[in-house]
């Protein structure tokens, strides 16, 4: 499969801050790809470089097989982009803006009119005659998505597209993104893990300017899910947790509010053999022990060291 986005050794330095630190990433063409990371991880900087708004300090970034450093109108004609906070000409109306945006791609006449009608409907802005200056943030976000689709792009780059939407708007947008699978590569950054789990084929997790994991979602969860062991005992959980924390195969040990012990382990087999022995040696009653699958949130927290979103 060809790559819609190929990034190798990308760095971006702002003064003393390293926003991107040797970022490597491959986004397969036709996929819906989630770009996850806590605030300040470098998601927006990556998107700015991919769209030609910023230049990398070093490394290369290719979009649809072409180096973004040499991006021209032909490459931009194949891309749709929505920034995190889209800004429009506030004196325009939605229909005018979409017509203007389509015109920049060389569209005109009835095909453009038809597309504008469809996109206004998609954005829920049909019949809205108010100028954009009077729109809510959610309306602007929906118009932003519509303008990004006006050229039926091969690659759709979206920076936090659902952040300003209400639950219904979010659901509709995610369904729409999922429907593009196979026809358009959708690359969207977000810190909303549920959105990624709902529609993405693959995901990359970014932390401090580096990709710490990239894989299809199921594989990522399988890879990390096998490393999580949940233990529940009647009494003495605190002492057991302390002993587990000292085990060589235990990477992190956490207590849940309902009293269970969650252990992220580097060697699941060793853990499965050792934990019952530990419980027995303390004369505790083992109520439950299983290798639970990590959800994406747990994978994310595990990978970025709990720095949060």
């Amino acid at each position: 499969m060809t790559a819609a986005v190929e990034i190798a050794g990308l760095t971006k330095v702002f003064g003393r801050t390293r926003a991107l630190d040797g970022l490597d990433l491959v986004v397969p063409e036709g996929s819906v790809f989630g770009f996850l990371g806590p605030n300040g991880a470098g998601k927006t900087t990556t998107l700015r470089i991919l769209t030609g708004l910023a230049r990398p300090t070093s490394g290369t970034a290719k979009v649809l097989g072409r180096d973004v450093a040499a991006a021209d109108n032909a490459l931009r004609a194949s891309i749709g982009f929505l920034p995190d906070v889209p800004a429009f000409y506030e004196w325009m109306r939605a229909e005018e803006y979409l017509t203007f945006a389509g015109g920049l791609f060389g569209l005109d006449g009835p095909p453009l009119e038809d597309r504008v009608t469809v996109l206004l409907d998609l954005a829920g802005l049909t019949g809205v005659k108010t100028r954009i200056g009077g729109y809510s943030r959610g309306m602007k976000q929906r118009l932003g998505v519509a303008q990004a689709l006006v050229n039926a792009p091969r690659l759709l780059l979206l920076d936090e597209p659902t952040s300003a939407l209400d639950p219904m708007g979010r659901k509709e947008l995610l369904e729409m993104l999922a429907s593009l699978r196979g026809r358009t590569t959708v690359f969207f950054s977000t810190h909303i893990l549920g959105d990624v789990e709902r529609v993405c084929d693959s995901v990359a997790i970014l932390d401090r300017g580096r990709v710490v994991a990239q894989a299809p979602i199921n594989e990522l969860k399988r890879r990390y899910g096998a490393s999580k062991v949940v233990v529940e005992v009647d009494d003495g959980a605190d002492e057991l947790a302390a002993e587990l924390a000292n085990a060589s195969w235990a990477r992190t040990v956490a207590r849940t509010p309902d009293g269970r012990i969650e252990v992220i382990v580097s060697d699941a087999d060793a853990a499965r053999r050792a934990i019952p022995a530990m419980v027995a040696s303390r004369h505790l009653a083992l109520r439950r022990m299983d290798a639970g699958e990590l959800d994406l949130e747990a994978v994310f927290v595990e990978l970025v060291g709990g720095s949060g979103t």
Partner: protein
Amino acid sequence: MSGFRVFARKELREIVRTWRIWVLPGILLFFALTGPVLARLTPQILSAVGSRQGVVIQLTKPPTYLDAYGQWAKSLSQIGLFALIIIYGGLVSSERRSGTAVLVLTKPVSRRAFVVAKALVHALFLTAIVVLGTALTWVETAVLFGSAPAGALWSAALSWLAFALLFLAIMTLLSVSVGSQAGAAGVGIGLYALLAVAGIWPPLTTLSPAGLVGAPSALAAGRNVAVLWPVLTSLALAALLVATAAAVFRRQEL
């Protein structure tokens, strides 16, 4: 090329549908309309002011159409130029600051087209205002003074227009390189002061844009001033400055 045309049309519509249609035309057309009236009534105004203070003020000669032309040239050179510098200090930076440039420049519109379209559309807009204002002054002068030869008025107005186009280009470059509108306007006013001082040295007056600092008033007064070289160098420099603005903008990160 279609991106350039569509973006230029957007600029034009933006002028018509925002404050831009009112501010600069409002200022210049107000002075175009009031200048000849003020010139015609100057003796009466002075005599009324003098009589209130017990002083008799009498002009040595009655006002002529040249006084009306002088009013227009003075309005253009002072208020017109400063208004232009302040208004166009944010020509490009306002779109960068608001974020509207991001959505345009990630579509098939080059940064060069973005800058050149803005400069070109506003040059046409400025030309239209100056032509309209000068025509108003011309007609009104003919009505009020009975005579309004075209040469002095139009040569003064068009020489100022060349100077204004140079400053539009300067402000385009400054609005690309200086982040704030106020900062760009401050530098623009500083450059005007430098040009005015440079006009003291005769070779610069003869050949460079510095010759256009005082030329409109001199031409409006009916004096013979050679402005061909200053006009040509101003227009050439304006084109160069817009090209430089486009090149600088191309290298910037948004």
